[in-house]
């Protein structure tokens, strides 16, 4: 099948050295697998040493042609050169894993990739829906009637419980004590003091002596309202010469 041909790109032959290019390979493992397939044996029986030679020769060939060689190909070459020297050197039982073990792992890697490549080709070659077999072209479709599916997340749930707890937990309200003069106090005080004020007097003069600016502010506000109330009752008179000017009070005539 054409599809398969594409998956297994034709091996590079020596007499086509000029075609030597790394563009066609999807990384060093891909190149290795294709070189391995040139040995024309089952991947189980492949000679790793021969494969290493092939790979190194290939990279060398690319180098002499001054082709750009991606770093991962060189890393693989370095690793394979190392593996090769290990395989050729007398056995050192201290080396773990052994070079044979490394060779076996590489072989397994190639088998795995080969198996997946083969599986991919077999999948693509199956009777595929929409290409080889067809579903009904014009299904009527099934009608749907809406029904609610309730949604809530775990967070919603915990937040809801937290909310309930926060809401219903006995709350303790602490009101900070603040010195204030109530309106009643102010009316009494201004009413008492106005008796002595026959002349225009500033409202501030009626305020109690205090070092607490908050209390002073409260006393001023309450006394002002008290003055308005007393004026309404006809017990005092109010005068202000200009906007924001001093507020003057005196006993009603």
């Amino acid at each position: 099948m054409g599809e398969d041909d594409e998956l297994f790109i034709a091996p590079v032959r020596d007499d086509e050295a000029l075609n030597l290019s790394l563009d066609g390979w999807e990384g060093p493992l891909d190149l290795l697998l294709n070189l391995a397939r040139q040995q024309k044996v089952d991947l189980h029986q492949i000679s790793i040493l021969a494969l290493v030679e092939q790979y190194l020769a290939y990279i060398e060939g690319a180098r002499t042609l001054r082709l750009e060689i991606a770093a991962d190909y060189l890393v693989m070459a370095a690793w394979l050169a190392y593996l090769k020297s290990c395989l050729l050197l007398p056995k050192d039982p201290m080396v773990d894993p052994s070079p044979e073990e490394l060779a076996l792992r590489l072989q397994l890697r190639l088998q795995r990739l080969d198996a997946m490549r083969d599986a991919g080709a077999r999948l693509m070659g199956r009777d595929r829906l929409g290409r080889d077999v067809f579903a009904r072209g014009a299904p009527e479709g099934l009608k749907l009637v809406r029904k609610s599916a309730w949604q809530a997340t775990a967070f919603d749930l915990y937040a809801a419980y937290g909310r309930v707890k926060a809401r219903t937990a006995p709350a303790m309200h602490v009101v900070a004590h603040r010195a204030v003069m109530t309106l009643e106090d102010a009316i009494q005080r201004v009413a008492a003091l106005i008796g002595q004020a026959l002349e225009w007097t500033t409202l501030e003069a009626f305020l109690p002596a205090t070092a607490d600016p908050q209390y002073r502010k409260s006393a001023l506000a309450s006394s002002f309202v008290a003055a308005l109330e007393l004026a309404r009752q006809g017990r005092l008179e109010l005068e202000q010469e200009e906007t924001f000017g001093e507020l003057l009070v005196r006993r009603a005539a």
Partner: protein
Amino acid sequence: MDDFLRAVEAAIFASEEPLTIEDIAGYAGEGDVEAALRDLAERYAGHGVELVERGERWHFQTAPDLAHILRRTREDSRRLSRAATETLAIIAYHEPVSRAEIEAIRGVQISKGTLDVLMEAGWIKTAGRREAPGRPLLYATTPDFLSHFGLGSRRDLPGIDDLKAAGLLDPLEESLFQLQLESDGEDD
């Protein structure tokens, strides 16, 4: 069933629109298309699917008498209301629990609809009655509740300390506001 007949059947089945006899011959090749259509129509008679001709074009359609079954309820996602979520949480943390207890914990009355929604969602069920005056009906959560909220068991519910750590127990200004709103009438 011969291959010509099979080809006619498959071509009509796969086509996105009704096919004329010429269309069909274009797929199925040499053969008596009209005879094949008669044969097929007969084979499909009495099936849930019929071969019919409409304006000299042929197509399969489901049998008209089955139209009513080709309809089905679909689930639409709807978010649980605040009242229902709180009620569910209270049941989960306090089960088995009666409606009066839920209301006491929530500090707000719950409408019948709230419990119905939770039942419909499959998250709560009735769990007997309390042996107490009035024998109130009790509610508890279901296994579906656990799986929906990704809980292995009720022990996996975060504890009060966990909620506090997550800031979920902070008395919010909003909760006061909410209280006001809900007492005006709760909706689900």
